[in-house]
């Protein structure tokens, strides 16, 4: 291989992945100029061009830069996801919640940590009604002929207190969680 061939082969390799129209245009543009020249003249021209790495870097610098910004979900998507998991889970039991979870994990905006929290939040939602009825589990009744003969147990004051505390805590955590996720999505969009 001649010096010209080596130069063009190296330049072509350095332009790997570049649009073929640009890559071939550049390599052929140099080739057509050097064709028919003496080896000494061609070598002189190649020296003037500079190193193939320099020429390839110049070409790459002129290409449109790939968009490195992380794509974000549109606002409606974040809101729809939160609505699906919260209200959707009650409107269409289980299915609404599942669709919401799929939308949550398909999101480009929320981080993995935020998605985990979003997945756990519906569990908190289920815990709310469960906590409300907690004191009822402590009551045992003896019923004969439809009449309550004996009612024993009943919630102890601390159990009622615990139930109220859990309910209030769960409601606050539930709302705060969803608001936090919506705010996080909005902040990501503004970055």
């Amino acid at each position: 291989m001649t010096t010209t061939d080596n130069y063009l082969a190296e330049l072509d390799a350095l332009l790997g992945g570049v649009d073929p129209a640009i890559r071939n245009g550049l390599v052929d543009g140099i080739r057509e100029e050097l064709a028919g020249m003496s080896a000494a003249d061609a070598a002189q021209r190649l020296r003037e061009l500079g190193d193939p790495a320099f020429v390839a870097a110049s070409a790459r610098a002129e290409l449109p830069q790939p968009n490195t910004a992380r794509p974000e979900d549109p606002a409606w998507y974040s809101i729809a996801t939160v609505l699906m998991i919260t209200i959707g889970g009650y409107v269409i039991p289980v299915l609404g919640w599942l669709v919401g979870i799929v939308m949550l994990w398909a999101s480009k905006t929320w981080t993995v940590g935020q998605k985990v929290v979003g997945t756990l939040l519906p569990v908190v939602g289920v815990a709310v009604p469960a906590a409300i009825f907690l004191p009822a589990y402590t009551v045992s009744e003896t019923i004969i002929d439809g009449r309550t003969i004996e009612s024993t147990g009943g919630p102890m004051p601390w159990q009622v207190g615990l139930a109220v505390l859990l309910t209030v805590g769960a409601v606050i955590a539930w709302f705060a969680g969803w608001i936090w996720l919506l705010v996080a999505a909005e902040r990501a969009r503004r970055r």
Partner: protein
Amino acid sequence: MTAASDQATQLRRGVVEACILGLLAGEPMYGWQLSERLIGDGAIIGSIGTLYPVLARLRERGEVTSYEVPSDSGPPRRYYELTDAGRHTLHRFRGEWMLFTAAVDRYITPGDA
């Protein structure tokens, strides 16, 4: 890259397309010929590598077209020429450029501000 050379690079980047259109308005030219003119006359580009991505953009926009001319000494030469769209773009740029340079001159010329 220093601030001064970065500034020069940005300036050149903004005018390289118009310079190519301007050169081709005179006559059709081949790549190497264009590159020598643009490197030699005021260093509008630093390397022939810069030329071809710009030519590709101009071709995509239909402002420049190309054709091959057979050569006795080797592969055919690819010539680039201006289209009507390219002439129109160049004409518009000339108007904007005159206004632009006149305004910048007024700001940067000592005592004229």
